[in-house]
């Protein structure tokens, strides 16, 4: 992992940087939302895995795969949040939990999606991201 984000995100970041404007970036993000590599199907959305405080519905399950590496599954009804979580899943899945626990959302800003990192209490993505980091820390200590 580079100092800011896993190197395998560089291609995705470049893809977003190449977008003509913010609307094109969000269109690309909608594509990532539709192609989430580790989706959390709505039938698995429960109160336990719900991220509270978001104005959209958002759910996260963090676990370890068979090899003891981090596995994030996420689902949200807002496509922008879902897209950001898809990219986050690409970023963190397969890493050691300790590595995930040190991740910052700097890659989102680098992609030109700084608005997604607003400290607004209703912000779905930031609440989800913080939950992932918290759970990665717990998993790294088990």
């Amino acid at each position: 992992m580079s100092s800011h984000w896993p190197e395998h995100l560089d291609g995705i970041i470049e893809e977003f940087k190449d977008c003509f404007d913010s609307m094109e970036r969000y269109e690309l993000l909608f594509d990532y939302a539709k192609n989430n590599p580790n989706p959390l199907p709505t039938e698995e959305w429960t109160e336990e895995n719900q991220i509270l405080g978001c104005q959209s519905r958002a759910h996260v399950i963090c676990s370890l795969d068979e090899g003891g590496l981090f596995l994030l599954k996420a689902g949200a009804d807002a496509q922008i949040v879902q897209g950001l979580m898809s990219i986050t899943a690409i970023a963190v899945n397969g890493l050691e939990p300790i590595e995930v626990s040190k991740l910052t959302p700097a890659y989102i800003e680098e992609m030109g999606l700084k608005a997604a990192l607003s400290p607004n209490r209703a912000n779905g993505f930031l609440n989800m991201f913080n939950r992932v980091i918290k759970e990665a820390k717990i998993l790294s200590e088990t």
Partner: protein
Amino acid sequence: MLDIKAIRADFPILDRVLPNGKNLVYFDNAATSQKPQCVIDAMSNFYENYNSNAHRSNHTLADEASSALENARNQISNFFGAKPENMIYTSGATEAINLVSYGWAKNNLDNGDVIVITEMEHHADIVPWQELSKEKGVEVRYVPINNETFMLDMEAFEIALDGAALVCVTHTSNVLGIRNPIEEIIKMSKGKNCKVLIDCAQGAPHEKINFETLGADFLAISAHKMAGPTGIGCLLTSNERIQEMGPFMTGGSMIKKVTTDGSTFKDGHEMFETGTPRIAEAIGWGAAVGWLEQFNMVDIHNHVHEIAAYAGKEMIKIPGIKIFGDPSNEDSSGAVSFLHETIQSQDLALLLDQGGYAVRTGHHCAQPLMDALGVPSTNRASFWIYNTQEEVEGFITHLKYICERFA
């Protein structure tokens, strides 16, 4: 006839260019209005030239601050047709309603008494009554809305009034923009010997509210939706009701005498204004009222109604857009709630923001109304005095573009 160009010149923020280079188009006025330069100047002038605590010290600045605070009270209460001695400064409409709950209802209602509210209320006019119900055993009755017209079911209202002691209803829905038949509600309620509280947070920016003419017992008002600063509002009440109230918060300024054996309290509004007053905010609100007084509020309503009706008419033509309520209704306050059938509301708001359009998204602190509408949230464009038809035209174009590209 309003000179919108001149009005817009009073609001420096309307020239704001957003980080993405887009010009701000502010359609979130039901959340809070923007502030004219005279309000900003009045508050700055206080801090620059006569900042002092009010009603305490005996020096020039303290006298100037006290006078400004009370002059603002006179100006604001006069604007609303109420007596200054019956105007209690609060942090806003929410605190004003809580003041009625804790200061009046707690002392005057008891187990078995009935409070009538509606499904259309803001949480500020629901939760205090639910809490009072838990504490005192009062019954809270909810008047439903008609699922087709989204208006209050007035037949159900009349039935709910049977045996009621207090009626609490919003003047204008913050979600639907619907202006309720307040005069009829007050008349019906008074006919059944009910006390009446009207939440005027959304109504005050759109029409001239007059306490004496309306004949309600309590009006709750927020400054920040009517060109004033955040953090201040008031409860307007009558000679009779204020005498029936007890203190909600206690401390300095509201006492006659404090000894180790106990305390006695001042009378009237002073009993309810403990602690350092919101002096700059009151001065700012006074300036806002002074600014509004140059207009006929009917002209403001007509301008906003024209824009909202146009927005509603054009929005409904966009495939996938559904509007809740009827912006073309003559009494509409200019709030247009809408949803797209496939683009989630938070996504839609963020995409609108990319075009510079600021709208509200969420449950609007009205979850029972959302339940009645059968949706978890809506997008809401809300207009005010400085908005223009050209802004709405740009909004429609951007909304169409989003719907075509992202649906």
